[in-house]
């Protein structure tokens, strides 16, 4: 693809902290290379703001290679921007053209309070995992990895679910701010494997309980989450989670 440079207008959400009201601020950026990533464009802008003694824009990022899930930006009305199956850090400026106006907002959900500008607190996801998104294993000498046979197809499905990076785009896209796609991926990756079987019932009940406490909404199956998930997690997992929940709720011995 041919290289080109562009001048852009950015409308970015600025918010001092959790307790203040935010607002949009407009920035002009010049000579942006089509080969830059979206975050590099922000780096260029922030460098300039620092030189001008203005406050840089706060945004989350870590790996910049699509695996950590930190780079939460809602770009032009879509979490992670216009490209399918892509995180913000992997979005490149060739997705835009000279003269474009780009509106960048933080994830909007009461369960994800804004810390500053485009950074949100996704601690709710960690607490859901702590509630049951694990298997209990005794410490000591490591068990033989192949001691328990796993069907190849199941292993693949579990792996696909495990690709979820906990970015929260599913919540950001959902009209109900539901975390079901995330929780379903975290439940499915264990539910599909024999190692996940012993804690099957308590896991799903505890994780959903925590999910509700954190203030996420109820899933109404619109499919918006699946459409924006950078790891293409399928809503099939949500149906699997529903099935697990229903059978756990009816058969738990408590």
């Amino acid at each position, binding site marked *: 693809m041919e290289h080109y440079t562009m001048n852009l207008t950015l*409308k970015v959400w600025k918010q001092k902290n959790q307790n203040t009201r935010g607002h*949009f601020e407009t920035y002009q950026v010049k000579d942006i290379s089509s080969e830059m990533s979206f975050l590099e464009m922000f780096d260029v802008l922030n460098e300039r703001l620092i030189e001008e003694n203005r406050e840089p824009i706060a945004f989350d990022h870590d790996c910049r290679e699509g695996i950590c899930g930190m780079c939460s930006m*809602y770009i*032009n*009305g*879509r979490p992670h921007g216009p490209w399918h199956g892509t995180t913000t850090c992997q979005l490149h400026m060739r997705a835009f053209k000279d003269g474009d106006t780009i*509106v960048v*907002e933080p994830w*909007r*959900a*009461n*369960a994800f309070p804004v810390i500053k500008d485009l950074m949100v607190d996704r601690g709710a996801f960690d607490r859901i995992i702590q509630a049951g998104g694990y298997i209990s294993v005794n410490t000591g000498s490591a068990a033989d990895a192949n001691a328990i046979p796993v069907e190849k197809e199941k292993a693949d499905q579990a792996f696909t679910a495990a690709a979820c990076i906990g970015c929260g785009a599913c919540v950001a*896209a959902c*009209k*109900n*701010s*539901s975390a*079901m796609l995330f929780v379903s991926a975290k439940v499915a990756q264990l539910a599909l494997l024999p190692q996940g079987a012993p804690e099957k019932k308590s896991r799903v*009940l505890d994780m*959903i*309980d925590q*999910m*509700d406490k954190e*203030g*996420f*909404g*109820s*899933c*109404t*199956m*619109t*499919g*918006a989450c*699946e*459409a*924006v998930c950078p790891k293409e997690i399928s*809503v*099939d*997992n*949500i*149906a*699997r*989670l*529903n*099935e*697990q*929940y*229903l*059978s756990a*709720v009816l058969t*738990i011995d*408590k």
Partner: protein
Amino acid sequence: MTWKQLFTSSIGKKLVMGFTGVFLILFLVVHVGVNACIWANDGGTMFNKAAHFMEATVVIRILEVGLFAGIILHLVQGITLEIQNRKKRSIGYHVPMGNRGSKWYSRSMGLLGTLILLFLIVHIKHFWLPNRLGGLANIHEIGFISYNGKAYHNLYGEMLVVFQSLAVVIVYVLGCISLAYHLMHGFYSAFRTLGLHNPRYVRIVHATGTAFSIIVPLAFAMMPISIYMGWIS
């Protein structure tokens, strides 16, 4: 785990919507089947007899109570869901996502449901109330009709009277359109909520749901239309 938790958890609420939704879908099958008898073109004899069967036995009466309970549960839980879900995002987006990623009707189940409810109020007032409270005869001269010396409610006659008004026909058609879109998402979504994840069955449910959502409301809508247009005698 308590029963209360089952009904108040986020998935629990959806399970109630799913179960009652499937139950109401089953009711639609019966309703459309009975009503289709008007097209027998026999002056309403077959339809009046079918309708009579639907009111004559105690089994149906019990199911009717279940039906109203189902509607009320679906309604109350649906409104609760809508209100609670809306509270989860106090500050909305400047640029909405719109139809990128989801269908408008899947996001408008509350609105479509409300339209259906409004239609139902009109509909129940037209047919169910006068029929059950014996008001048919008072409203119109055509209250009863007798076949082989046995008296039947003349619901068919009632239909002929009600659907003389263009305004009523339009309200019914709009009701059917709302139902079609509500079903287009609801049919598939209900089964997903109840845990259907096997791709083979998901495909079948999707296809069946789409066909059902088009055929059943279309059949319902054709009833007032064909009476108004005088297509049946």
